């Protein structure tokens, strides 16, 4: 059985309906961003804001993909996402589910999405959960691989990180090749 033979199949991807609101976050295409915060409010707000608005170019609304420990139904309900594929990081079986231990499928899903949608916006939430199920360095390798593809495209990667869940060295390694967006962690 090939490595990606059990790859998850994404539902039809499309741009979200525009909300007619202001683009509040100016993130640079081709870059990855770390947001030190808990809960991941800024990350989700930025993600939803970017995929629901245009930057003055009506035909260039980016498409998004989210991976989260939160259930997709809750995310869709809270953020009004209808077209955006959302993958649930969980140990349950299902079409829109990625097992936290299956880093190969996670990597492949993200890279494939970037290749299919060069202006994609990707939210990777649940890093703490991934690290609790894998070695930190393995997770870092996933991020580095995805980051390499981001750099070669016009895509944007947003990763919320709860700084309380990592030691200083790990945070530094995570932020090594990424821009940092100011955030907060509720203690």
């Amino acid at each position, binding site marked *: 059985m090939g490595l990606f033979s059990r790859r998850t199949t994404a539902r039809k991807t499309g741009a979200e309906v525009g909300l007619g609101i202001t683009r509040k976050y100016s993130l640079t295409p081709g870059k990855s961003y770390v947001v030190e915060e808990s809960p991941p409010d800024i990350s989700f*707000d930025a993600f939803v804001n970017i995929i629901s608005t245009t930057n003055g170019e009506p035909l260039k609304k980016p498409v998004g993909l989210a991976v989260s420990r939160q259930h997709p139904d809750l995310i869709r309900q809270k953020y009004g996402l209808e077209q955006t594929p959302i993958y649930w990081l969980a140990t349950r079986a299902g079409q829109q589910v990625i097992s936290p231990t299956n880093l190969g499928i996670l990597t492949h899903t993200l890279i494939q999405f970037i290749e299919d949608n060069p202006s994609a916006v990707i939210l990777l939430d649940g890093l703490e959960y991934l690290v609790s199920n894998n070695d930190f360095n393995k997770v870092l390798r996933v991020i580095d691989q995805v980051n390499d593809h981001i750099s070669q495209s016009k895509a944007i990667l947003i990763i919320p990180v709860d700084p309380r869940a990592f030691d200083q060295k790990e945070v530094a390694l995570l932020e090594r090749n990424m821009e940092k967006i100011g955030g907060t962690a509720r203690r």
Partner: protein
Amino acid sequence: MCPQVIATKILVVDDSEAFRKVMTELLVRVGFHEVVEAKDFDEAMEVFMREKPKISFVDMILPGRSGVELTKAMLAVDPKATIIAMSSIINKKMIRESMDNGAKDFLLKPTNEIALSSVLTMWSD
């Protein structure tokens, strides 16, 4: 470095006292020191007419009359007022209704300095 103090009066309408407090703190942090508050439609209209804020952040879900009704009432008093709708969920129908009734923009709660600064840069002089 302290942000520049901006002389634009802002009204925050939300039934949660805790949220109003956090929002006021955020506004002060991004340079807006003249902040007034209200908890519902009646109080908001009273404060709005008395204080004449340039920008009003209005929660869409208020006890009694809704944020959309409040938006309409405020704009009937001052058509030049800038109303920013707020909500803790993105309900596209509700956002569209707010914008159709004169709200200029939408802010997801809880908000943060980046989003707030961006909205204020857009809508304050």
